């Protein structure tokens, strides 16, 4: 496996991309065009397009790296690949409808670089499905009304389609994490290792996974999170927001 160093941390090297893409290490290296104008929406669609492609790539390496995984799980991952393909195609179609194109903005592949370093399948499910995909449910719940307010119902509709699929991805991630930990308590250690790795990368790269995004309780319930788990995410979110308010008040 080829690796690269980002802010002193060794992560998996980028997946293959066409020469039209400028690749940066972190999203914060891409200047954010604020507001909900057409340029911002193009930039966002471009970023989400590449995020979906990374999701295909992560699901695909879960299939190839773990040939002895239960067949039912490999089947779920294969189906996920197709879902993410459709999501990427939907987002590219919207980007092109708004006059944008592939390679218009720089891209970062941090999800891939982070998850691709985790050496257990249960660890990858804990991070990719239970954390990143579950986090995207929260992000989409905020984004969909913003796109509607901006008069872009087509993009909002596309995001609703995507959200419905992501709920299932999070749900099967939850189910398989539970099955792995029920079958072998050592799986909990693999999850703890993966979570520690996520924290290390987030700390090094300055990311804030729940920054300013309210937890989408309904979608998380559908995705199989328990009340206690959702409550824990909400508690973390409140802690982060309280910290932000204190910092702002200084």
């Amino acid at each position: 496996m080829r690796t690269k160093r980002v802010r002193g941390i060794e992560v998996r090297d980028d997946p293959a991309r066409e020469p039209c893409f400028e690749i940066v290490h972190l999203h914060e290296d891409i200047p954010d065009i604020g507001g909900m104008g057409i340029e911002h929406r193009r930039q966002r669609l471009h970023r989400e397009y590449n995020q979906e492609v990374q999701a295909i790539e992560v699901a695909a390496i879960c299939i190839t790296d773990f040939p002895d995984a239960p067949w039912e799980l490999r089947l779920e991952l294969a189906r996920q690949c197709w879902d993410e393909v459709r999501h990427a195609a939907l987002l590219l179609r919207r980007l092109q409808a708004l006059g944008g194109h592939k390679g218009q903005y720089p891209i970062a592949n941090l999800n891939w670089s982070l998850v691709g370093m985790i050496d257990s399948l249960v660890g990858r499910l804990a991070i990719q499905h239970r954390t990143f995909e579950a986090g995207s449910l929260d992000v989409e719940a905020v984004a969909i009304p913003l796109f509607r307010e901006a008069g872009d119902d087509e993009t909002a509709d596309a995001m609703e389609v995507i959200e419905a699929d992501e709920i299932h991805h999070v749900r099967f991630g939850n189910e398989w994490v539970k099955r792995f930990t029920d079958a072998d308590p050592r799986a909990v250690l693999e999850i703890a290792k993966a979570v520690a790795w996520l924290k290390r990368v987030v700390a090094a790269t300055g990311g804030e996974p729940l920054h300013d995004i309210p937890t989408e309780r309904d979608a998380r319930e559908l995705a199989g999170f328990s009340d206690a788990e959702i409550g824990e995410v909400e508690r973390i979110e409140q802690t982060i927001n309280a910290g932000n308010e204190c910092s702002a008040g200084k």
Partner: protein
Amino acid sequence: MILSVKERGQFVATMRHINVWLMETMAGWVPSTPEMEVKLQFGEHLWDAAQHADALGKRTSELRMPLHHNLPPAKEYIDFLNTVSGVEPTQQRLAAIYDVVLPGLAAHYRRFLDKTDSLADAPTVRILERHLNDIDRMLQSNRDMCSDLPDLFLNDKTWIDALREQEARCDPVAISITEPEARAVEA
């Protein structure tokens, strides 16, 4: 002549193995293929291969084999699959899958359908007929993509022909016992 349960099981389990290989090969190529359209096509078609493997794997348990039983193909066919797995340029990857592996697989399915009894082996027949339709769709999808993006066409006909010949030389099923021989063995 009705193919024996053993012969049908061997064919189905071997085809399952090949479809799992197809799923894994396309999955392996998703991150290492730079062109987004191709990456997305592999991402979609690996799901087709997975569904085919799943249907065939359920059928193995109806043919006196374990559920989702895999039988490795004959050595020559494994060598052919290894040749394909090692291909790196995108144009060659596309040609290998869509000009050689899938048409070859379809030909093996059709030959089996010609041999097997459509009543005795109706569940396998239904499965393979559905898979043939899917393969047609996959091939059409690749033709459409290459027509939109002509740079993806492989112009090296010699390379494709050589791979086709390698595929055509081998019967994927490792152990092929004809019915009279099988009866003789049993006797």
